[in-house]
């Protein structure tokens, strides 16, 4: 894996629906069928009502930057050419306690270091895009 990005194990049953969704251009989260609470990362039991029943529901893909970091070397080899790049945590419009980690990019297929990282502001609105890396469609974010 020396020179390759780390990727999620998309065949893991607990996360497969999420990654099947991103491949279709959809951002899905788990929603409890009993109490309606949404959750991500996914898990088998709803922490609010303990129901095991859930559906994967699409979100608008809109949110705000909750926090961000700018990694510098030393890094894994695959990430070194991009340093310094940005990693953002985004809180989603549907529920600010739903957060996802990704990168702020200028365009869906743009590199993770295209945006000047010092121009990023906590609270700025973003929307999801999907970037294909190997066979995985990673959710990334552009300015909304």
């Amino acid at each position, binding site marked *: 894996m020396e020179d390759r*990005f*780390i990727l999620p*194990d998309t065949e893991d049953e607990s996360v497969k629906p999420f990654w099947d969704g991103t491949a279709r251009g959809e951002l899905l989260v788990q929603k409890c069928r009993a109490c309606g609470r949404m959750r991500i990362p996914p898990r088998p039991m709803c922490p609010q009502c303990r129901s095991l029943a859930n559906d994967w529901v699409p979100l608008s893909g809109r949110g705000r930057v909750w926090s961000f970091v700018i990694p510098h070397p030393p890094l894994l080899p695959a990430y070194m050419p991009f340093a310094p790049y940005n990693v953002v*945590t985004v809180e989603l419009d549907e529920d600010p306690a739903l957060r996802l980690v990704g990168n702020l990019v200028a365009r869906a297929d743009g590199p993770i270091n295209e945006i000047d990282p010092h121009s990023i502001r*906590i609270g700025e609105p973003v929307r999801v895009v999907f970037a294909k890396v190997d066979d995985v469609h990673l959710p990334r974010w552009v300015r909304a």
Partner: protein
Amino acid sequence: MAEWIQDKTAIVGIGQTRFAKGLEDSELSLACQAISMAIDDAGLRPSDVDGLAMFAMESGREVDVARNVGLGEITYFGEVGYGGGAACGAVGHAAMAVATGQCEVAVAWRARKRASKTSRPWAQATQRMSGDFGWTRPMGLLRPVDEIAMLARRYMHEYGATRDHLANVALASRKHANRNPHATMYERKLTREEYMKARWISEPLCLFDNCLETDGALACVIVPAERARDLRHDPVYIHSFAQGLQKQCAVMTNYFSDDPLRGPSWAAARRLWANSEIEPGDVDVAQIYDAFSPLIPLSLEGYGFCKRGEGGAFTENGALEWPDGRLPTNTSGGGMSEAYVHGFNLVLEGVRQMRGTSTSQVKDAESCLVTSGEGIPTSAVLLRR
């Protein structure tokens, strides 16, 4: 009344190897050396030891340690998970086992080499990740420092904490290390200007917001309080102990909970103080887990030394510095300037403060809080003379 472990056990022996990068001995050998020194320091024999509490991450196992050091028949052994959250957990498990009669002489320890396979998991990431890290590592949040930097920036944004506050942490540790001949940074001064100009590792954190990388091992011996009073050193009592795992806890990536800045310290603190006769305001000296500088203000808030959001401001006016600060903290130099051995060196410095033998000894110190990693399932012990 609850059968608390309060003051029922005491730390009576400590041992540590030297600290360096690239020691030749194996982690198992280092563990055995530190344990052996701790047993000698207590004036006990290896055959007296009948309890073991260790990090689940240890590469040397209980059986290896027992047959190398020549221990007696072991009747309690337990392990605590989550790396940097485990040091006080191992000590506390040993104390609980001794207090409940499951063993009479327990040893807790940590041995770690930076090049070890189990020590730097981020550098050996597999290409396909599952579990919590599958939601962060592929996005380039690769190292522990990146994970904590994400919380740190949010914390600074919400509460107005500054790089000057983080520098206060780094500089206090360094000043203490400059007084401790065993510290890695004993001869290396650090100025605020050098801190501010240091290279970034993961903005907003720079080089000096990070702990050291160290090879070394430390151990301590825990016995019942009444037996402790007959031994060589004045007993250092384990007054209170707690572990902490907050609601919706993740490992290092606590961004997915309702309240990410209310970390595991808050959970541990609730039990620690509930079972203590000492209150935060009475604590004379603290050893607070410092893999990264922002963990200090977060922990100060969690353990109740100040209100939420005030951890940054708490560090002002030399509050963390020996001898006159309101809470001298990490008086050996801590993980940032003495050694980073998953926080076990903080336990031993707590013992030295209670024995009166620290190189930055707080005058008449009666109590010392020692904490393990904020940001992961954690633990803490409150020591008293």
